[in-house]
């Protein structure tokens, strides 16, 4: 009887703990996109990326720009690849500092089906003078897309409910799991996180 009471107490304690504990690192199962046009699950045809709002290009580099509804495709792909989606901008010092680590992951893990997507938040006036030359100069090999959607209060919580809006920020996901990080990464840290995604 006493043991039973203890067990009950322990269970109640756990429930309290679970509810009082707000985890920053969210591993929520991917939520169904709310604003994306229905991507038809088809075993034969792979869903195509949405049509960009605009494509910015110079002689060598070309970057598609999306609003959040368009970008969501890159955050919810369901296949056998693990995606590392990094939110950054050329003006963000810690973002630029960690970029080579993401590049290295993209190259070294290509055969392990890991793909890096760099989502630039550069402002309109910086795209042509800063972003495009930066991609060329640094010879960025990872896919770069632009997010051009000023209504951040609407889309930040859709990327992750715990995101305050500070960058750098990263989402790692595959068809099984998903994690969000509001922080910077070293190469080793990134490698360690990715090893959890099987």
């Amino acid at each position, binding site marked *: 009887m006493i*043991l*039973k009471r*203890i*067990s009950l107490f*322990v*269970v109640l*304690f*756990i429930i309290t*703990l*679970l509810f009082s*504990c*707000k*985890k*920053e*690192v969210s591993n929520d199962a991917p939520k169904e996109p709310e604003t994306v046009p229905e991507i038809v699950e088809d075993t034969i045809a792979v869903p195509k990326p949405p049509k960009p709002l605009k494509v910015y290009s110079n002689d060598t580099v070309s970057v598609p720009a999306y609003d959040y509804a368009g970008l969501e495709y890159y955050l919810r792909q369901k296949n056998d690849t693990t995606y590392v989606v990094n939110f950054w*901008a050329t*003006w*963000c*010092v*810690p973002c630029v500092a960690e970029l080579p680590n993401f590049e290295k992951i993209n190259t070294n893990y290509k055969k392990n089906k890991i793909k890096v997507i760099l989502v630039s*938040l550069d*402002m*309109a006036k*910086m795209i042509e003078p800063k972003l495009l030359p930066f991609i060329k100069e640094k010879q960025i090999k990872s896919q770069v897309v632009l997010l051009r959607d*000023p*209504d*951040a*209060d609407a889309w*930040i*919580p859709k990327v992750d409910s*715990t*995101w*305050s*809006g*500070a*960058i*750098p920020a990263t989402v790692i996901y595959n068809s099984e799991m998903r994690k969000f990080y*509001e922080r910077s990464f070293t190469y080793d840290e990134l490698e360690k996180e990715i090893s959890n995604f099987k």
Partner: protein
Amino acid sequence: MKKIQFLAMFLVMGALAAFKADTSVAGYKVGDVATDFSLKNVDGKMVSLKDIKGAKGYIVVFTCNHCPYAQAYEDRIMALDKKYKALGYPVVAINPNNPEKQKEDSFAKMQERAKEKKFAFPYLLDEGQKIFPQYGATKTPHVYILQKTAKGNVVKYIGAIDDNYEDAAAVKQKYAENALDALLKGKDVTVKETKAIGCSIKA
């Protein structure tokens, strides 16, 4: 019974492990009483909220020199101060960045910027980076609207100034102004919290 105990132990351990993963920043929520501070202003004098005479509350803005988002909002922060200072809600700007980590946010550079832009409000350095973590600011710009009450300065709004960082002319929702207007009318703030992109604070 032993099995149950074992299971319970296991669950407790799991719960504790999950708890350990909790690294979320503590900070104010709407309704909390915000701390006052004594921080050095660009004119060399120390500034505390309690010293600001005639205030009904404060617009505390964590902002800085170097961040393009903060720069995009500079004129709008000045406009907020101009409009609401007379109504009892002055702007108090705080640079939360460690100048060691971000040279452009040094005290001397803050003084330069304040002079250049003719800031009519205090622009304070969070020396030792002690105040911003208490507020829970994570980025610049990050706004906290406080209302002065008998129990202290109560947080009434946290978040962005408005919904368009790039184009002041294309703003649809003036979050900060809406909150201030509600407070001045003695009404409840409807949108109490918003999120915006910003530069992570360099502590």
